[in-house]
């Protein structure tokens, strides 16, 4: 231990010293150890365990004492670490202890616990639950939830600690949302006995400003004891009656303070609270709005253009009908001509076929008749030949006429004539009848 020269004391002070702090700290520890060993009872808060010791705060409504206990002693009692929750009521035995610290470690005070007994649930938690039931029975959970929440608030109020991380988280949430309107900060302490009235006042002040449309109340994580300001009855009743919706984000999502019950919305983190305060995502909304505008334009144009086209079609109808009929008529004419040509060709072929058939039939019929006629002719020829005078003349007969062409067929005519002409096969010869008929000469 280094020995430092003792400095001069404070001029005019009647107090003893100055003493070295280490010596005083050691003396303080000795004095505290002399105090009577006692039993205390209260609620366990902020329970945590290291390898060697367990630590917690023993609280009631009026005060708190930090406690520590050797882990071996704790486990010797048959207790489990998991059997302790915030608000658990215990009785502890022990006395005050003081660790003086050193050049490299901090001093600390704690009540050194040598014995411990779990006595039941804590009064603070019980009081909080009783208040929760009373607020619920009074219908104070409903008014905020019935308030209309603006989809796109232009002005947002925020109640939070000025130096807390929650402030940055709220800003980050709003930026992530793409919101860039007016943000009004109402800073207030968020953890001590003065916190609840200041938070209440900040909320009332924000709600009194007409342009504030929604209020965020944000505080980061901590033990439930640290968050107890947000279970204050006056604060909760005030929130329930505010004209603007309150979005609460107090502690971790496992903690549920009473302000979470009376607020319009309860969120697990300040970032989520910021997003909940702006239900509409401005960037997405702008894209949706552009789609709506395009849709309106399309519908408007289509409604007019469609009908204009219909009207134009109607106005063109007569000309189109005539053209249509003309085409149809032309087509029918072509078909008619083609049909006529086919008909003529068919008729010609049919007539040709019939003519051929008739010709064949006629030919056949004519041959038979010719043969019959020829036979008859031959018969007639034969008969004629049989009666031909030339053939008779050729056989030695002669034809006698009177020289003037009249045939003399009897001797009497010949004798009467006296002169006759004889026709032989090779020519005529005049003759004289010598034995004229008696009496005629």
């Amino acid at each position, binding site marked *: 231990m280094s020995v430092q020269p003792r400095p001069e004391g404070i001029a005019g002070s009647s107090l003893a010293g100055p003493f070295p702090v280490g010596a005083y700290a050691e003396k303080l520890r000795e004095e505290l150890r002399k105090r009577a060993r006692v039993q205390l009872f209260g609620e366990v808060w902020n329970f945590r365990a290291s390898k060697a010791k367990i630590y917690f705060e023993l609280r009631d409504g009026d005060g708190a004492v930090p406690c520590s206990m050797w882990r071996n002693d704790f486990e010797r009692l048959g207790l489990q670490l998991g059997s302790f929750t915030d608000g658990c009521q215990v009785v502890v035995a022990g006395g005050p202890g003081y660790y003086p610290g050193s050049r490299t470690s901090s001093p600390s005070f704690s009540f050194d616990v040598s014995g411990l007994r779990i006595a039941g649930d804590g009064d603070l938690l019980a009081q909080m639950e009783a208040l929760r039931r009373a607020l619920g029975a009074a219908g104070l959970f409903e008014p905020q939830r019935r308030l209309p929440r*603006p*989809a*796109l*608030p*232009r002005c947002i*109020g925020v109640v939070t600690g000025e130096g807390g991380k929650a402030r940055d988280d709220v*800003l980050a949430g*709003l*930026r992530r949302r*793409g*919101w*860039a*309107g*007016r*943000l*009004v*900060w*109402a*800073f207030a302490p968020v953890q001590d006995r003065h916190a609840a009235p200041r938070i209440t006042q*900040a909320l009332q*002040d*924000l709600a009194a*400003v007409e*342009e504030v449309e929604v209020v965020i109340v944000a505080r980061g994580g901590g033990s439930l004891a640290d968050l107890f300001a947000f279970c204050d009855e006056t604060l909760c009743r005030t929130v329930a009656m505010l004209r603007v919706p309150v979005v609460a984000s107090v502690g971790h999502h496992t903690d549920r303070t009473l302000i979470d019950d009376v607020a319009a919305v309860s969120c697990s983190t300040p970032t989520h609270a910021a997003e909940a305060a*702006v239900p*509409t995502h*401005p960037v997405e*909304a*702008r894209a949706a*709005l552009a789609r*709506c*505008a395009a*849709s*309106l*334009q399309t*519908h*408007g144009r289509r*409604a*007019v253009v469609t*009908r204009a086209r219909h009207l134009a079609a109607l106005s063109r109808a007569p000309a189109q009908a005539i053209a249509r009929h003309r085409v149809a008529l032309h087509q029918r004419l072509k078909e008619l001509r083609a049909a006529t040509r086919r008909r003529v060709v068919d008729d010609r072929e049919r007539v040709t076929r019939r003519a051929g058939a008739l010709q064949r039939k006629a030919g056949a019929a004519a041959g038979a008749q010719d043969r019959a006629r020829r036979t008859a002719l031959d018969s007639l020829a034969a008969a004629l030949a049989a009666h031909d005078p030339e053939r008779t003349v050729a056989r030695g007969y002669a034809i006698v006429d009177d020289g003037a062409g009249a045939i003399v067929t009897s001797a009497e005519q010949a004798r009467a004539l006296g002169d006759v002409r004889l026709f032989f096969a090779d020519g005529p010869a005049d003759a004289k009848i010598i034995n004229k008929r008696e009496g005629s000469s």
Partner: protein
Amino acid sequence: MSETMTYEGATARLEAIIKRLDSGEAGLRETLDLCQEGRGLVEFCAGELDAVGKGLEELRLDELVARLEQRPPA
């Protein structure tokens, strides 16, 4: 456009108009009227979006109150 029109009211009406137009049941006169009303709503909503997109303005409550108190009465 109504003085009490809200963004959510405007978007809800706009959705109803688009739905009606999409149904194809609106006649020419109704279609044109709906398109005109819709364009007005789009303009209103765009104005609302512009109002929260100009840039984040941070104020302390007392600053805002002081500013409001300086504003001449309407």
